[in-house]
């Protein structure tokens, strides 16, 4: 029986998160494994949890914490990892999902930024790469994907919090995910967790045109948001990035959709109580619980609508 005593309702250091990922893999050896898909700029591992009942199944990709200061996302991802592992064999929906598909979960997409936000600057959002010719560090990794790279809604100023970087995929953290998704070859959903503003979005952000699968994604996103709201009444807005936030180029779900992953979504988790990126730890578990209902709705749809 597991006895790590890990507190999912608290914020943790990167080392503690990695230790808990190891614990999960050890506690559920037939379901959970840890794999390293690359290393960050400062050489920290990009650790992914793979949930698989065996075989080469189509898969769902989940990531969290690409913007390092959004701590509730990394915490939610870890709670979610434990939920998936512990519900397999108990919850018929998750059991059926994992009998049909694999799940890959990257709880800390920007490990350098996460450590920096815990040790030097709580408000740090970017990577920590060195920009040649500039005194400033880091690139906004959600402006660095090869999707309308360098277009509207991204800055070319290395000192800006939304700096897009010198070229698409210049950030090793982004490049590692792109390579993994391409090499896997059978990812059917790409879901990224952010926090602030309570939104559930789908492409596009780099352009404001309607995507081919608009109707299906819109209906699905609304169902997911309804499921999420049903738990604690947290209100979500649903729509394409461009129309419900603003035009933003180089984002991950635009890349994944254009790459052929139809079910591409981005969550902006709760910030109720006007705490911003300083969401009190006692809201981690409620946030994770409600997010889980939205995630499950999307994952069930992906399972039931193969393409």
């Amino acid at each position, binding site marked *: 029986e597991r006895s790590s005593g890990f507190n999912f309702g*608290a914020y943790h250091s990167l080392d503690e998160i990695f230790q808990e990922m190891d614990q999960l893999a050890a506690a559920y050896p037939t379901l959970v494994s840890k794999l390293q898909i690359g290393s960050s700029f400062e050489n920290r591992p990009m650790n992914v949890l793979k949930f698989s009942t065996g075989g080469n199944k189509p898969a769902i990709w989940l990531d969290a914490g690409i913007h390092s200061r959004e701590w509730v996302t990394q915490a939610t991802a870890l709670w979610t990892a434990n939920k998936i592992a512990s519900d397999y064999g108990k919850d018929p929906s998750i059991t059926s999902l994992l009998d049909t598909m694999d799940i890959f979960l990257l709880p800390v997409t920007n490990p350098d930024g996460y450590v920096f936000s815990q040790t030097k600057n*709580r*408000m740090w959002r970017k990577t920590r790469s060195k920009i040649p010719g500039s005194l400033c560090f880091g690139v906004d990794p959600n402006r660095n994907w090869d999707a309308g790279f360098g277009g509207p809604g991204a800055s070319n*100023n290395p000192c800006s919090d939304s700096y897009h970087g010198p070229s698409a995929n210049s950030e090793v953290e982004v490049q590692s995910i792109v390579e993994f998704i391409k090499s896997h070859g059978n990812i059917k959903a790409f879901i990224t967790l952010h926090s602030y*503003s309570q939104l559930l979005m789908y492409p596009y952000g780099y352009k404001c045109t309607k995507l081919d699968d608009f109707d299906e994604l819109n209906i699905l996103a609304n169902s997911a948001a309804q499921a999420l709201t049903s738990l604690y009444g947290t209100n979500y807005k649903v729509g394409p990035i461009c129309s419900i936030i*603003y035009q933003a180029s180089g984002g991950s779900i635009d890349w994944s959709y254009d790459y052929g992953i139809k079910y591409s979504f981005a969550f902006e988790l709760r910030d109720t109580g006007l705490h*911003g990126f300083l969401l009190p730890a006692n809201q981690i578990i409620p946030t994770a619980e409600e997010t889980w209902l939205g995630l499950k709705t999307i994952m069930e749809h992906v399972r039931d609508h193969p393409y």
Partner: protein
Amino acid sequence: RETFVGHQVLEIIPRNEEQIQNLEQLEAQDHLEIDFWRSPTVPEQTVHVRIPFSSLQDVKIFLESQGIAYSVMIKDLQVLLDEENEEMLMNQRQ
């Protein structure tokens, strides 16, 4: 460790497109070192922006001169950071 003593987070509600443009101009002024937590999008949609102590006066004067309504959402960011840090330390001890 960078401190955020005296940094405030303002909640701003732009009433029209012109005010949104004014806020975008503000965002482009790098020397103010302001950090939009929720950027301006459409009229009546709330905007949240963190402002360092050194830029507070300039920003507030600008907002008032443009007739843009705002309120203080977080009075001193460092107070919240200290609380968060204390909570993390307590959890680590446990």
